[in-house]
């Protein structure tokens, strides 16, 4: 590999990693900080992508679609929390796994009933619909760069929210002792409802943002979910920074794995994971 391709591959890896981060951050928020295991997270990503498709066809603009989509996903998040997840905080993880597993099936079937099983594309917004030439044959789509920038901004915002605000403290406190938070006169139920909705919105947002480059297809949620699991496992549960570092690592491992050892491309990230767990059983970072 010449230096030039090396740098382009590096860029590929980072960009892929940042996209992973966007999904994984919502996951680590709900998993690690709220203490709920939510397998349906991938479905929210899928729902986001399908919303981007339907809404942008309807409104003609991806940005309008994203704004409407965020509102809708917050509503969805609040409704789900109210109807289902609020019953789960006191239950054990096994039941959380199953309930959210059931949700995956439901969402996947509903998707097939409502929008069918076709693959759809979403147009890249006109202002980003151009590419920067890198070599005489290869150019890089600007939209991908834009996505990466959005991811970085979100990472910083999320970190600030969790680590520096009272809301963040309340969320973390709630994951260790809900009763006590209530006894302090704080409405933890409301906070959790909103945080859950935030997590859903993050996943859906990731789906919407990624829709133009990933296209929209059945089963897209589960693929993302699994790799995000690996991100959270490597990064350490509940850590935003951990998720960021792990996403980038996986992005790079995956990209270079495909180029350098194509025979084992599917397993490179898992080997990476095993190696990291051997060194740090609880992931790279634990908590914020």
């Amino acid at each position, binding site marked *: 590999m010449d230096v030039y391709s090396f740098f382009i591959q590096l860029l590929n890896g980072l960009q892929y990693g940042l996209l992973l981060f966007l999904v994984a951050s919502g996951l680590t928020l709900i998993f690690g900080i709220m203490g709920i295991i939510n397998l349906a997270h991938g479905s929210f990503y899928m729902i986001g992508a399908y919303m981007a498709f339907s809404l942008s066809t309807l409104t003609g603009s991806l940005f309008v679609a994203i704004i409407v989509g965020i509102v809708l996903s917050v509503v969805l998040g609040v409704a789900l929390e109210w109807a289902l997840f609020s019953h789960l905080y006191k239950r054990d993880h096994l039941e959380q796994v199953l309930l959210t597993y059931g949700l995956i099936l439901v969402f996947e079937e509903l998707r097939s009933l409502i929008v069918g*099983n076709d693959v759809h594309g979403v147009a890249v917004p006109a202002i980003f619909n151009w590419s920067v030439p890198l070599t005489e*044959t290869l*150019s890089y789509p600007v*939209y991908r760069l834009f996505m990466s920038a959005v991811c970085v901004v979100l990472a910083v915002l999320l970190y600030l929210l969790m680590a520096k605000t009272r809301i963040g403290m309340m969320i973390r406190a709630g994951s260790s002792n809900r009763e006590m938070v209530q006894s302090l006169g704080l409405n933890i139920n409301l906070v959790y409802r909103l945080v859950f909705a935030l997590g859903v919105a993050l996943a859906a947002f990731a789906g919407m943002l990624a829709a133009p480059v990933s296209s*929209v*297809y059945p089963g897209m949620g589960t693929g993302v979910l699994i790799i995000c699991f690996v991100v959270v496992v490597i990064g350490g549960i509940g850590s935003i920074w951990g998720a960021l570092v792990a996403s980038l690592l996986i992005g790079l491992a995956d990209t270079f794995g495909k180029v350098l050892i*194509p025979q084992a491309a599917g397993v490179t990230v898992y080997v990476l994971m095993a190696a990291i767990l051997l060194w740090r059983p609880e992931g790279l970072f634990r908590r914020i």
Partner: protein
Amino acid sequence: QGKLKVGLMLPYTGTYAALGNAITNGFKLAVAENGGKVAGRDIDYFTVDDESDPAKAPENANKLIKRDQVDVLVGTVHSGVALAMAKVARDNNTLLIIPNAGADDITGPLCAANIFRTSFSNSQPGIAMGKVMAEQKKKTAVTLTWDYAAGKESVGGFKEAFEAGGGKVVKELFLPFPQVEFQSYLTEIAALKPDVVYVFFAGGGAVKFVKDYAAAGLPKTIPLVGPGFLTDGTLEAQGEAAQGLLTTLHYGDGLKNPKNDAFRAAYTKAYKIEPDVYAVQGYDAAQLLIVGMNAVKGDVSKRAEMVKAMEGAKLDSPRGSLALSKGHNPIHDIYLRKVEGKENKVVGVAVKNLTDPPRGCKL
């Protein structure tokens, strides 16, 4: 003679649900055109959703064969499931007609007297495209596909024909199924600068690849080609990025022949949607069954006679003419198609009466 029991084992949920439905529609249309009967017998359909899950395939096939005791089994889309079905059908000596799955092995080493296919084999479109590219005097090619049987067979067909015509495949790239993160491969392709890139993807992967390929600015210098699945049913999603792509398949839009015109009219009338290649394959599956049944006057116990009639069948298919090879695989024209707007316009015949070499079939 009671009703003829037909088991339809097809995907009705999941990624391939649309294909399963189209095949079913096509099959039933042919039966309806035959007066709703086959050799005078009414039909009892038994449907099972195979979910495109090979792990459930043996059980699902058993359900139809042992529980429902069907006379003939029709299915399916997914090659892995079809392979498992073929095995069960062989073990139980049940007549099986495959309306889509392209795994070469089914009509190769695994071929059997009771197993027929009315669709295609994976290598066929590849062979045709390889030949066309060689004729266009392309010297070098790179191939890319998912690392699974269908992809490898398709690429294999391309490579064989392309290199036979004097070209050279400089690199064969594979990525794990069903990953869709292509960026690093695009970088690799840009570095290799071949004359043409042949890929096999379907569904979501096909959409994403075509778009990524265009976004990377590659089509300007390196043309992209592939089997028809690259652009079938995905043009809506691929939009601009797919314009002008060349693909090969045994069917296409704007194909002109009387049978096709009639078929399209009838199908649209019956189901209110446009037919696609899968509907054609389902339609032909029923046509083939009708030929066999007529030869034995509806008496399925005369299996040998029935098989003989089916082997000799010359079907008037919407795709043109359709005959069967020794391995019970279609012999048909493969068309060269070009994407124009939302259509895969047939621009010519890539190979006439293509029959792929029946490797390993002991029939």
